């Protein structure tokens, strides 16, 4: 579904990604693991067009992403739940969801998608008139995921959905991720919470200072020395 080949990217003179190649197949949940500053957010920003790649090739279902304007990437079926959620804090929950359905194709199905998202996350329906910025962290993450689902995407990019949340809430958020997986969405999730994310993911890549250092099935990575040493303190 999604394929990256030799992607370089960075900020001004600073290079953050070096020849990253990876792929996500339809129906999979793929995780990208990495420490702070490894380039996980940069990777997702490159895929969704927020940051132009410097070199390399990227395709979504065979369509080259590098030639598409950033605001058109969503139409290829890629929805991005950004780091630290980035809801519109002074818009209501429902207005946030409406923003998720901004593209013409999604507008036509707004009522249907809204029912779907409210069905998936009843809490959002209860809170639909509340300002998004006044909700709890877990609820906000729910809203951010709901907003991404409003466009009816094929692939959902999740950037550290558990960041900044209490342990109980982290478990709930991974439950949400499992739920959208079972709804048939393909998922690319970036995380530092290795133990949790590898329970959800089929496959994973290990990113270290901008380079892919290891890849394999979730079980393989969980057993690998690199991951055990770096992230699980074993």
């Amino acid at each position, binding site marked *: 579904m999604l394929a990256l080949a030799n992607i370089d990217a960075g900020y001004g003179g600073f290079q953050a990604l070096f020849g990253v190649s990876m792929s996500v197949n339809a129906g999979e949940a793929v995780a990208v693991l990495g420490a702070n500053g490894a380039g996980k957010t940069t990777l997702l920003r490159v895929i969704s067009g927020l940051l132009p790649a410097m070199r390399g090739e990227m395709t979504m279902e065979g369509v080259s992403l590098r030639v598409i304007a950033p605001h058109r990437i969503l139409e290829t079926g890629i929805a991005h739940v*950004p780091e630290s959620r980035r809801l519109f804090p002074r818009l209501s929950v429902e207005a946030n969801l409406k923003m998720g359905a901004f593209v013409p194709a999604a507008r036509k199905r707004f009522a249907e998608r809204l029912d779907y998202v409210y069905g998936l996350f009843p809490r959002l329906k209860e809170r639909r008139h509340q300002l998004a910025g006044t909700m709890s962290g877990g609820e906000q993450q729910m809203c951010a995921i709901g907003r991404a689902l409003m466009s009816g995407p094929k692939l959902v990019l999740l950037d550290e959905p558990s960041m900044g949340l209490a342990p109980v809430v982290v478990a709930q958020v991974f439950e949400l991720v499992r739920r959208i997986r079972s709804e048939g969405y393909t998922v690319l999730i970036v995380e530092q919470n290795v133990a949790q994310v590898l329970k959800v993911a089929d496959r994973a890549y290990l990113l270290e200072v901008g380079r892919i250092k290891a890849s394999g099935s979730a079980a393989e990575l969980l057993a690998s020395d690199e991951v055990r040493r770096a992230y699980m303190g074993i």
Partner: protein
Amino acid sequence: MDCHLDIFFLEAVLNGLLLAGLLALLALGLNLVFGVIDVVWICYAELVMVGMYGIHYAHKGGAPFLLAALLGILLVALAGALLHVLVIRPVLDSAPINQLLVTGGVLFFLQAAATMAFGIEFRNIGIRLGSVNLMDMSFAWSRLLTFAVALGGMLALWLFLTRTYMGTAIRAIAQDRQIMPLMGVDQRKVYLVTSAIGGGLAGLAAALMVLQYDIYPQIGLQFGPLIFMICVLGGLGNMIGGFVAAFIIAQFIAVGGSCFATEWGYAIAFLFFMVAIFIRPQGLFAAKS
């Protein structure tokens, strides 16, 4: 000083209320543009001036007033969009002072162009709506109409901002610019639409003002500073704050003008503004709500 709580005082208060409608409409367009694009259109009142001339000449050329007003609104909406594309877009990433200076340049350009094209004479559209008398008070119909239409225009904008996708995007973009592409929103288009609406509001104000005021190339100087004062007092970019501030300032102008002399009304309003801004530099209401 001649100030008693009599019928003339009440008349001044009510006239202040009517003036507030117009000032609130003027402040709204400027606040909308600033809230979304983060650039102050120093030449905002000059866009109104362009609209007033447009409506004046369309009417003189034979168009009925309503048609002339509509043409004027479209003209200034187009001017707002052009201002954005030709002047603002190239300096979007420049320092705020440069952005101020270029729109300041447009201010002088429009004044000079109007003087060259139309001369310095005061022109009047020549429509007299008369006035209505209530007890010993008298209110010009043009002011009553202005108040009603200004409120109607603001209500229409509010409905647009809360009910439509583009309106929601306009509110959202002021809260988080960077992630708009993730919503499939083309920021350039939102800016362009916002600029056209900002211009359209200036055009609506122009259509109302030709019924009350003479038109001359420097009329922007009469209103421009007042509009900025209201916007800053309400918190620049805060549309509701601007609305409330317009009602406060209009009372100072109307009541101050009635108690002392008309000119003093403006001076008192500015004095209040300076004190208020000294106490609350961010405006009476926090910026951008």
